[in-house]
């Protein structure tokens, strides 16, 4: 980022520059997490016809800081039979990859921490490390509920990471196709800054609406947010994989979740909505671009908060069935359709049309499933309705004798 | 960049550690982990040859080989772990010394 070097005035050696960027990331993400927690509580409250935090600070804005202070001063309790190394390492395995994810995401045309050539692969690599932390937390707590929650959370995260990856492949195919049309090398197709750059006129959401939908659902599932929060819900598995953590360690999990929410929504905005580039593009200055990016991200974070308030929780088998039986086939079909259309030289709007058709099919499939008795995403076996039987005399007498 | 021999020696050390793991450890999952270490050392060797030999060879065979090794190793681990879990269900042990029904 040129901002930091200009602020310092002189050319800094590389490692001081890197250190400053790291500190900037940490500070920004902490402030961001505080803001998001407060906003979530307010938004959820309004959805539920109440007010939310109002006492601490003006309209309750200092509530998050008060919570953070409370967490920091809590006693650090550790179960004695818990494996000490794994218990204590697990929050770092969850926390550090999320912050590493911050690096390739471009906020404006120039403001990216580091323009990673293979940005997409990098983001999905660190998402995988996140999942390892979840399993370690569940295992290291020496608590059956924590283990159950941890295993379910990891299984859910892996299952939903697959459709997200395939949808990303679809988007990268479009970007590479544009590069090939221009005669350039396709090495840039994985670069996030280039993908934002490519959406000068049409954002990819118009070309791949199914991809956007699957990506958004995938974000909810990766972060174990409602409606996919069965592994971490208090009423289900007593809190899941972080039940034995207290104080700052729990705070790290919480911080990681909200930071990851912001970063993944920023990724979705950059990839599907054009990031800083659409609708005004490079004509506007950097400051308006950041407003554009944050505005889009804010709108979709609001949508995520809304889904938390409005949609009931999915059962674990419904969750897994939805990913493997519905989302994965659709994303595979999307990639194949992309490939077929592109290899026959179809225009971009054909891509968009096919993807929209698939999205409509997905919504239709889900609504039809929800009308059946078993709920969304599960396979149902039609049973015959119970026919009225002749009640025999034996049954009546036994029913009378049991004294009810 | 260190000379080629350094990278090869590090790979040899990791490979030998993997061999030791396969020969000494008794838990089936640990044997699989040591096997993965060996495969990784080999693929790193291939990549080192491909990168250091750009002047001599000029092609990417080693890197592609390493990619294929990663894919095959992942598939193999999945299947092998499935077998281990199944064996555990039947014999209630993951210790390879105790799975000796066929031993004379």
């Amino acid at each position, binding site marked *: 980022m040129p901002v930091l070097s200009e602020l310092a005035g002189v050319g800094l050696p590389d490692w001081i520059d890197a250190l400053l960027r790291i500190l900037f990331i940490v500070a920004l993400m902490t402030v961001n997490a505080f803001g998001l927690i407060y906003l979530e509580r307010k938004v959820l409250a309004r959805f539920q016809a109440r007010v939310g935090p109002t006492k601490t600070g003006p309209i309750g804005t200092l509530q998050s800081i008060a919570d953070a202070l409370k967490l920091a001063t809590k006693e650090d309790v550790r179960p004695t039979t818990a*494996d000490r190394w794994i218990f204590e390492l697990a929050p770092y395995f969850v926390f550090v990859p999320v912050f590493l994810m911050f690096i390739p995401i471009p906020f404006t045309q120039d403001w990216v921490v580091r323009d990673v*050539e*293979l940005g997409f*692969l990098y983001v*999905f690599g660190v998402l*995988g*490390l996140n999942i*390892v932390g979840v399993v*370690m937390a569940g*295992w290291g707590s020496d608590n059956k509920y924590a283990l159950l929650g941890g*295993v379910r959370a*990891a299984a859910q995260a892996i299952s939903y*990471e697959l459709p997200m990856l395939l949808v990303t492949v679809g988007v990268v195919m479009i970007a590479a196709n544009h590069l090939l049309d221009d005669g350039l*090398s396709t*090495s840039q197709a994985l670069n996030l800054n280039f993908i934002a750059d490519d959406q000068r006129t049409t954002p990819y959401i118009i070309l791949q609406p199914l991809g956007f939908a699957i990506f958004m659902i995938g974000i909810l599932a990766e972060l174990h947010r409602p409606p996919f929060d069965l592994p971490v819900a208090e009423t289900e598995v007593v809190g899941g994989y972080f039940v034995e953590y207290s104080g700052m360690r729990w705070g790290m999990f919480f911080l990681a979740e909200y930071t990851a929410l912001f970063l993944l929504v920023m990724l979705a905005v950059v990839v599907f909505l054009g990031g800083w580039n659409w609708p005004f593009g490079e004509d506007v200055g950097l400051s308006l671009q950041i407003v554009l990016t944050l505005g889009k991200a804010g709108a979709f974070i609001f949508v995520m908060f809304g889904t938390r308030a409005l949609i009931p929780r999915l059962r674990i088998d419904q969750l897994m069935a939805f990913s493997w039986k519905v989302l994965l086939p659709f994303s595979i079909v999307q990639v194949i359709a992309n490939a077929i259309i592109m290899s026959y030289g179809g225009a971009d709007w054909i891509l968009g049309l096919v993807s929209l058709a698939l999205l409509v099919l997905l919504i239709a499939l889900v609504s039809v499933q929800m009308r059946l008795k078993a709920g969304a995403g599960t396979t149902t076996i039609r049973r015959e309705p119970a026919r009225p039987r002749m009640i025999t005399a034996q049954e009546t007498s036994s029913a009378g004798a049991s004294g009810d | *960049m*260190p*000379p080629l*021999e*350094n990278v*090869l020696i*590090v790979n*040899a050390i*990791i490979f*030998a*550690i*993997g*061999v*030791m*793991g396969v*020969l*000494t450890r*008794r*838990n089936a*999952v*640990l044997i699989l*982990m*040591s096997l993965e*270490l060996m495969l*990784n050392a080999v693929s790193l060797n291939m*990549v080192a040859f491909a*990168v250091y030999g*750009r*002047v001599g060879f000029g092609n990417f065979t080693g*890197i592609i080989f*390493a*990619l294929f090794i*990663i*894919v*095959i190793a*992942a598939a*193999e681990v*999945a299947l092998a*772990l*499935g077998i*281990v879990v199944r064996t*555990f269900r039947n014999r209630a*042990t*993951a210790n390879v*010394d105790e799975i000796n029904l066929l031993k004379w």
Partner: protein
Amino acid sequence: MSAAEAVYYVVAVVAILSALGVVLAGNIVHAAIFFILALGGIAGFYLMLSVEFLALVQLIVYGGAVTILILFALMLTRARERPQALFGKTRPLGVVASLALLAAFIGASVGTDWFEQTPRGDIEPVPFQELGDVIFTVWIVPFILIGILLSIALDGAVLLAVPDEED
């Protein structure tokens, strides 16, 4: 020693010590954590050799998937509750065999007159598109075969995981 060589030695030491940790750790789950570290060390090696693509693929495949598979398998085989004998009777033989192999490899590596190498400090990143071109033209048959292999492995794993129906 320049910064690049210092980084090389640090990564090498991390990888070797983690590999030793996998093989010598008393607790199985600690061995799994050392495994992640060893694979991370190898990914660091790939980064140093400027093959970033392979480093990230290694991170995704091994760090994200194989590690979780191994942790799940450890959980399903009750690794914690039944600490089985971690080292068997073949331990001295194993150590001797691996040391002999190591000696053979080091002898071969140091003793051979290697080909004309890329000069030090001259390694440029692998051009990504050329890699893709080579995979899809020269190596297309192995690529398709690997796809078939992965499908077979997936089917096999699902078949193995289906529980028996108890009648």
